[in-house]
């Protein structure tokens, strides 16, 4: 089973909810759900016991921590929906995500990666478990750090590696950098857009397009605590909310927008408070807890499929590396990284699987070795790919016009209208005569 499961990491077919479980469980009892000051459900099992604030001290301006950073990691919240097999699969995919990025980091230092490298250490649960909740017809708009979600949608580690190495064999054949690739034909992934928030209204459009074809889909857009400051985030998500489109806004509240802490990014306490303003359900989750990520996304996906509209999820976690490899993240005050390191999503999941009795330590070791072998093969393929030849790129910016572009969901399905109505001359202009 495990080795086959590894392969599914690179299969085209996205992962959806599955039925049945062959493993006996002893899952802990569900703890109760709290709410924040504005009544937004907060699924976390701990509140952050510290604050990060800017301070002026001894002639130096920097960030300081107020509060305790030594608390141990809380247990994971048991999932209402995941089967043991799915949980193991999520664990495996998170490992693929992490090991792929470790290899990328090495290749970067070996001058094999071109340009910047943007890693997601500490965010694997948020990338993987959320995308894992999407159905085959649903869409995903990742950001640069959500390569885990792209793997869930069926891209292979080699795709990401070749992208980062600017290889001819990469999905964009060297035209685009890093995680900036997508697929509208099978995997339903919108290529990341560097202009943060721009992909949110695009998701709304995709959902609108699907609805015109009689299909209520979910379209999951990632945004960060920094990116959500853009106007297009509001414009796009408001449009989705108004149109009751199944856009799921996954706000990764990872504490640092490049070097800017959330204190300088927004004034509200929880970003999920904003869901009230949009008029959509919002929820706060622990972004290092794959179960919470999955369950919250799953419920939002179900809403979307029922045609009930958009959802807002705020996932609290921390970006454990710098913005890119060149950023040593020295602005992170002492204690904070250690606090979050204890909440490493993969370690937590490992512990959870063992505690539930769904996997033994030996299983974990075996899975780890299998993932390593898989990544090794992917790396070999990626490294072997040649660099692109300018002669092979036609630099064509226009899609051919003699190509019929297919409807993603078959046919347009709208209500019956009166086909006898004819175009009549428009009434007088109101603006200018």
């Amino acid at each position, binding site marked *: 089973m495990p080795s086959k499961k590894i392969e599914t990491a690179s299969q085209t077919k996205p992962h959806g909810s599955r039925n049945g479980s062959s493993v006996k469980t002893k899952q802990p009892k569900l703890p109760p759900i709290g709410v924040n000051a504005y009544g937004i459900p907060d699924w976390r099992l701990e509140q952050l016991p510290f604050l990060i604030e800017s301070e002026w001290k001894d002639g130096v301006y920097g960030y300081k921590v107020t509060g305790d950073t030594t608390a141990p990691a809380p247990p994971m919240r048991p999932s209402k929906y995941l089967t043991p097999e799915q949980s193991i699969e999520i664990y495996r995919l998170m490992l693929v995500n992490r090991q792929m990025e470790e*290899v990328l980091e*090495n290749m*970067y*230092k*070996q*001058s*094999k990666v071109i*340009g*910047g490298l943007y890693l997601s250490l500490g965010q694997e649960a948020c990338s993987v478990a959320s995308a894992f909740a999407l159905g085959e017809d649903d869409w995903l708009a990742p950001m640069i750090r959500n390569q885990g979600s792209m793997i869930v949608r069926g891209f292979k580690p080699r795709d990401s590696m070749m992208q980062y190495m600017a290889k001819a064999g990469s999905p964009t054949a060297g035209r685009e950098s890093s995680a900036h690739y997508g697929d509208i034909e099978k995997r339903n992934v919108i290529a990341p857009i560097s202009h943060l928030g721009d992909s949110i209204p695009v998701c709304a459009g995709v959902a609108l397009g699907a609805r015109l074809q009689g299909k209520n889909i979910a379209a999951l857009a990632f945004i960060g605590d920094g990116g959500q400051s853009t106007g297009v985030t509001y414009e796009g998500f408001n449009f989705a909310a108004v149109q009751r489109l199944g856009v799921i806004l996954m706000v990764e509240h990872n504490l640092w927008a490049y070097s800017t802490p959330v204190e300088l990014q927004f004034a509200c306490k929880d970003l999920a408070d904003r869901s009230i303003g949009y008029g959509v359900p919002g929820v706060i989750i622990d972004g290092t807890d794959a179960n919470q990520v999955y369950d919250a996304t799953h419920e939002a996906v179900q809403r979307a499929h029922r045609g009930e509209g958009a959802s807002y999820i705020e996932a609290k976690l921390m970006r454990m590396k*710098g913005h*890119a*490899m*060149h*950023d*040593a993240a020295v602005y992170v005050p002492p204690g904070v990284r250690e606090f979050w390191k204890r909440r490493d999503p993969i370690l937590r999941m490992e512990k959870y699987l063992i505690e539930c009795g769904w996997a033994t330590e030996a299983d974990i070791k075996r899975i780890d070795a299998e993932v390593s072998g898989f990544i090794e093969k992917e790396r070999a393929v990626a490294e072997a790919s040649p660099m692109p030849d300018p002669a092979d790129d036609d630099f064509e910016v226009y899609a051919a016009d003699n190509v019929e572009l297919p409807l993603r969901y078959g046919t347009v399905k709208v209500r019956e209208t009166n086909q006898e109505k004819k175009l009549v001359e428009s009434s007088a202009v109101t603006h200018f005569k």
Partner: protein
Amino acid sequence: MATDVVMPQMGESIFEGTITKWLKKLGDKIERDEPLFEISTDKVDAEIPSPIAGVLTEIKFAEGSTVQINTVVAVIGEAGSAVSAPPKAPVAADKSGEKSEDTGGAKPGEKPAPADQRPANPSASEPGVKELKPANQPNASQPAAAPASSAAKPTVSGGTDVVMPQMGESIFEGTITKWLKKVGDQIQRDEPLFEISTDKVDAEIPSPIAGVLSEIKFPEGSTVQINTVVAVIGGSASESATAAAPPATAASSHPPTADAAETAAHGEEIEVDTEEPTSAAAQASVDAAGHAQVQTLSDVGHPTGGRLRSSPLVRRIAKDNNVDLSQVQGTGSSGRISKTDVVSFLAQHGAGGTAPAAVPAQPKTAATPATPATSPRPAVAATATPLPPATPGDLVPMSKMRAIIAKRMVESKQTSAHVHTVFKVDMTRIVRMREKEKAKYEQRNGVKLTFMPFIARAVVSSLRKHPGLNASVEGDAIRYHKNINLGIAVALEWGLIVPVIKQTEERNFLGIARAIVDIADRARNKKLKPDEVADGTFTLTNSGIFGEQFGTPVIAQPQTAILGIGGLFKEPLVITDKDGADSIAIRSVVRLSLGFDHRIIDGSDAGKFMSEVKSTLENWSEDIG
């Protein structure tokens, strides 16, 4: 196989990094991705993993070294590889300086080098430069030929200029082959003053005025542009001027060969007279004389003072047609030569220059005459009567256009086996139709109704049935043209032009009528485009307007046939009515003469073609629009 380990680029703007620590020693085994060394950059500190498994065989930079990105800092060999012993002292030397015994003792590195260079440097600074300067000056001040030129500035005031005449339209320069008078000589008006030679002609040039030759500006052998003042008659001459030490440019006194003329014109090879060209001196004299020459040329080159104003298009037309733009009168603002100017110049003078004689190139100008249809036949009998040896008549050089016509006509006669056939055509039906229709027609279509479109239309329809007459000979092959491009000879006051109506087969009667009026108008107004006089495949020439019966036109190469249209006369003609009864009637008759190339067209072909034309005209049935 050894693998290089390089300093990585840790961030987009990073270009160097410092090796803070080697985590392995030479000879150590290392795994791929196992940390090999630590670096520190402006942005980040990092452990750098080995790109490959193997043995560390070489460390190229010591700890503390700062090296550029992508520099090889270490080499990993296969297991068992030899280790390159010497540890990396060199760069450490920079930092440790005297501390290192090695570097302190030898100092063979960078320090000694500057010291060695120091003696060399001064030589390249001030004193050295000064040495160089005198090297130039002696030459400049040498009493060589060059200074003479500048000293000779002849000054004459109040005299009459004698200029290099323009001996032909395309001529822009002439060579003075001989001065027939010396400075100080008395000369009568029209008395030969000097002899010239140009591309076209050699001539004695007479004095424009009586007086004393007070200055000669160019020595024999000089080639100067037209309209350049070459001598002055009268006025008060200064001493130096009389010497006429023919200017300066000792260089210009070459024998008047074509080469020399060319050379002088370009201001090259001026050092010919220099006897001992010691390199520096020779160089300098070239500079000086060359400079003088340039001045002369620039004076000469712009007789009107300012630069020649034209446009990219004008320059292209001029280049394609070998036209000297200085000959063209500009009518645009500030005397700018416009397209209209150069096209009408071409129409009047034809293309300039000497076209390669071998290939009768497709005419590209508006001025290419195709047939002398409207001009009197060349005087065949002119030589018949030997007259007493009286005055020899004026010898006038042919105009360029005349020269081209002459050449083309002879070429055509030499190329084609000309045969002519004449058909008499009863135009009465068309004449009546025209009389009846012409007023309404003009009102309706804005075009006068003439006979020309009838004939053109008849010719086109017959050519379609007889493609052999719409053809060219190419080597041993015949090219049958797809399109019928009908040339129509148009007489102009200044000559003859044959604009071409392209793809006549695509036009109906009215279309042809309009095209004829249009091109004829534009030909007369000099508004034809170069490509509108090119690529004809068959020509019509209406020579009948002067009352001739018919002509025997010469084929416009590379075409193979031409139709001459004779005069329209009222003549008695035998008419056979539908019952077969003959009677004599007064009819309007025209004679059409076909000149054809017997190389590819036989008499029967020509006859069939002509009878078709005749029949079409006599039984005209087509709607004329």
